[in-house]
């Protein structure tokens, strides 16, 4: 798909991810060499003020990168900037969305991640070199 095929307001993706589950959250910690017990230890998470273990913010970043790559190809990624705005738990499903905000000089997108109740858990921008 060429750069000219996109227009402001186009939705590159709006994808609902099923709950990650604790096993994959633990696997992500292992894959990223993250020793933080807050992702695997309920008692520790409780001491930090959370109801259960937390899903990693970088997992949301990684899912945005994967979904953008699926649409435009990984070599097109230039910038991905994600702010984490609310905790995500392993039992949460998330809807990730990317909407085109500009087509020049790069394709730019606004990103959001929301839980099924509408809570925003992340927002950000991406810049892509396509066409």
């Amino acid at each position, binding site marked *: 798909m060429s750069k000219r095929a996109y227009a402001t307001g186009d939705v590159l993706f709006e994808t609902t991810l099923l709950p990650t589950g604790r096993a994959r959250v633990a696997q992500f910690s292992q*894959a990223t060499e*993250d020793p*933080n017990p807050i992702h695997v230890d309920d008692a520790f998470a409780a001491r930090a003020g959370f109801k259960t273990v937390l899903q990693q913010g970088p997992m949301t970043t*990684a899912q945005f990168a994967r979904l953008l790559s699926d649409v435009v190809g990984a070599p097109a990624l230039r910038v991905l900037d994600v702010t984490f705005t609310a905790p995500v738990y392993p039992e949460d499903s998330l809807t990730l969305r990317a909407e085109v905000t500009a087509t020049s000089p790069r394709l730019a997108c606004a990103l959001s991640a929301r839980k099924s109740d509408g809570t925003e858990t992340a927002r950000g921008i991406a810049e892509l070199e396509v066409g």
Partner: protein
Amino acid sequence: MKMSMQGHVYPPYRLTPDRMRAREFMAALGIDVEPAMPPPTYLVFLRGETLGVNLFADLDIPREKALHGGQRYEWFAPVTFDDAFDVTVTVDKMVEKTGKRGMVWFADVTFDYRFAGTDRLAVREVTRLVKQS
């Protein structure tokens, strides 16, 4: 947060993408494939912790008070499994603010991943760490 760390630059460490870890990374995302190249965000600040960049300890952020505020990636060149990287870490900006529940501290830390033995930048990651009081 140890505000005197602002501007601190760590000695570089070397990092080589690992195929098994990359596969595990994708599996954790729910994708069961052997990736042909490292996933875009495979290069992540967390890998520095066992290589001399223990930000939580060095910035005085107890893990039970830590939040992750966000990440910014910039990609400058393709990354393959045959590449190795010299990683330079800089504690860029540290800010303290008074929030509804007391003091909150923010630190932006930049990880520059350069192709090993060169000045050529492949990836820049800025991670935003937050400490609650």
